């Protein structure tokens, strides 16, 4: 779960990381008692907000409501602005990049520090590898004192004790919130000390069972400003189903990501186009199969559904049951091409035979048949 800047900053405050004082403005709020200068920041979950004009400075020369209305009129990367964070303006002497995350390829935890922060951190690191430092740390020991001292020297930090306090607080948030990313970009050096100008916190949905109340509270806050027409919402991922809508006319359901990707490649090689891709995950059930079929079936230009099953954990008797339920509930005669094999395949295939639903054994044949159907030949 990605948190908005204002949510992240609430957490920062709680853990003693200095942030600018400010207020959150919703779309229909009456704006009064604002004193310039202020930084007005659109609250969005997508990146690249600054470059897209989502951050404005109000110096008092014009009416603040004009700037606020401009921001609320914005849609950045398909995300509409529904809340603005108004912050006191601070004098920035220097910017630093700080984050704690996992180094996925190496399965370790890592503190990342950049000598200069700002909007173009990805670009600048490609150009200046020496300006970015990766400090791997032990998940049981945490970030050690000497590692912070080392990095402070590397990037030439004068106010060491404050810097250390901020990194320790970030680490605490990383651990206690089951975060996968805690980022401050930039951390500003100001005449009054260090200030976190932005916040980015991603929580691990897989840790929901440990933080039920927290997740519910954050979701409630997000609902208040989330765009109801948000196009990202159509891309659903719950515990077991991944659903990605695309623009072709063949719906694809698979019970494993690898075979799913192979199927997309085969369809493309046969000259077909995929309407949506649905992956069930390893352990599934007849209900999940039914749900997946209904999800995929919702596409308006759909010509056929290709179901690719090769079960290890996944049981073919359960899958057959789900497909049969779908056929009985949704009587739209949508052609379905099914490849079924793996765990409990004899029972699954028998169930399908009993209902006179044809089953393919070869992935190639099933994919080719689906493409032919979609092209109308």
């Amino acid at each position, binding site marked *: 779960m990605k948190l908005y800047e204002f949510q992240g900053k609430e957490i920062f405050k709680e853990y003693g990381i200095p942030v600018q004082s400010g207020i959150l403005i919703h779309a229909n709020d009456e704006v009064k008692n604002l004193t310039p200068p202020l930084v007005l920041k659109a609250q969005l979950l*997508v*990146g690249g907000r600054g470059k897209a004009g989502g951050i404005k400075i109000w110096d008092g020369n014009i009416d603040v409501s004009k700037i606020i209305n401009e921001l609320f009129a914005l849609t950045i*990367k398909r995300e509409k602005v529904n809340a603005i964070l108004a912050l006191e303006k601070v004098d920035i002497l220097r910017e630093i*990049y700080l*984050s704690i*995350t*996992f180094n*996925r*390829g190496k*399965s*370790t*935890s890592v503190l*990342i520090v950049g000598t200069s922060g700002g909007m173009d*951190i*990805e670009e600048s*690191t*490609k150009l200046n590898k020496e300006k*970015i430092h*990766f400090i791997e740390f*032990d998940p*049981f020991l945490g970030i050690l004192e000497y590692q912070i001292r080392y990095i402070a020297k590397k990037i030439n930090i004068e106010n060491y004790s404050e810097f250390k306090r901020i990194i320790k607080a970030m680490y605490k948030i990383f651990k206690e919130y*089951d975060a996968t*990313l805690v*980022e401050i970009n930039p951390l500003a050096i100001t005449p009054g000390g260090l200030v976190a100008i932005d916040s*980015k916190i991603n929580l*691990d949905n*897989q*840790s929901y*069972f*440990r933080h039920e109340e927290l997740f519910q509270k954050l979701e409630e806050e997000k609902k208040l400003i989330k765009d109801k027409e948000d196009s990202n919402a159509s891309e659903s991922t719950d*515990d077991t189903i991944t659903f*990605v809508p*695309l623009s072709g006319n063949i719906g694809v359901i*698979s*019970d*494993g*990501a*690898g*075979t799913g*990707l*192979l199927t*997309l*490649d085969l*369809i*493309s*090689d046969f000259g077909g186009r995929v309407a949506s891709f649905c992956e069930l*995950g*390893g*352990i599934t059930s007849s209900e999940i199969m039914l749900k997946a079929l209904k999800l995929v079936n919702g596409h308006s230009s759909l010509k056929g559904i290709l179901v690719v099953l*090769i*079960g*290890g*954990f996944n*049981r073919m008797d359960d899958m057959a049951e789900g497909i049969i339920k779908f056929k009985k509930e949704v009587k739209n005669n949508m052609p379905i091409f099914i490849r079924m*094999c*793996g*765990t409990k*395949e004899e029972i699954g295939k028998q169930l399908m035979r009993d209902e006179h639903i044809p089953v393919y054994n070869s*992935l*190639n044949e099933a994919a080719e048949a689906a493409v032919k159907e979609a092209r109308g030949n």
Partner: protein
Amino acid sequence: MSILIDKNTKVLVLGITGKSGRLQTEIMKKYSTNIVAGVTPGKGGLEVEGVPVYDFIKEAMDNHDINAAISFVPPPYCKDSCLEAIENNIKFLVLTTEGIPEHDVVGILKFAENKGTKILGPGSAGLISPGKCKLGVHPPQLYTQGQVGVVSKSGALSYEVGKTLTENGIGQSTVVAIGGGPFWGSTQLNILKLFQDDDETKIIVLLGEIGGTMEEEAAKLIKEKVHKPVISLIVGKSAPQGKSLGHAGAIIEGNLGTAESKIDALREAGAYIANNHMEIVKLIKKIEDK
């Protein structure tokens, strides 16, 4: 020979009393895997498929000769169970569980590294050495004994390729699924090295997919240290562009991870490139005819 498991593997099943644990124990036993004990806290004294169940791993270790374990323990209890296994000197652990919180996974993998436990997973379908042993959920009817070693991230893709090879009369030495990531106890590189050293394996099939940089690193290893023929299939060439990454992820992953970058690296390393599962068969036949 085969890699990681053989007829002498004596298995402990963690989470043996759950739905998946039970069914997979039954299938593994039918395949003659020597399952000697199981553990589920609070279920000590029961039997599953004739296998005695204990409350603690130490109790099982005290009563049986065990040299490998497979875990079906659900995510909330997985870290505790894995640390218990590692502390009790299990040297090879197949971790099938998906959806373990990332902080837990990183902890498990670090502790395993410290104590010298080899982990396959998390989210791994396990492995099968056809005709000898099966420590995982591979549907056994899709495999046949032979000389091709297969390593895959995805479990399903390793079934698909096993099925295709078997249907075309090509047997396998060992078929390994390391898990879909983003964290791995054993990587493609670890498995490639084992296949290189295994007498029975004559040809290696590397199944990769878009994302991350493991295939690029595997290519480097192939170029320098793997002298057996390697055939590689990278799936996801036609997949839509992924979601934008956060700053931290983008910094680590850079521009690598596309199908093209992986295929280019592997081809440059001397691997044969298959465009789909059927082409793997053609390439193997071509190599065997040489």
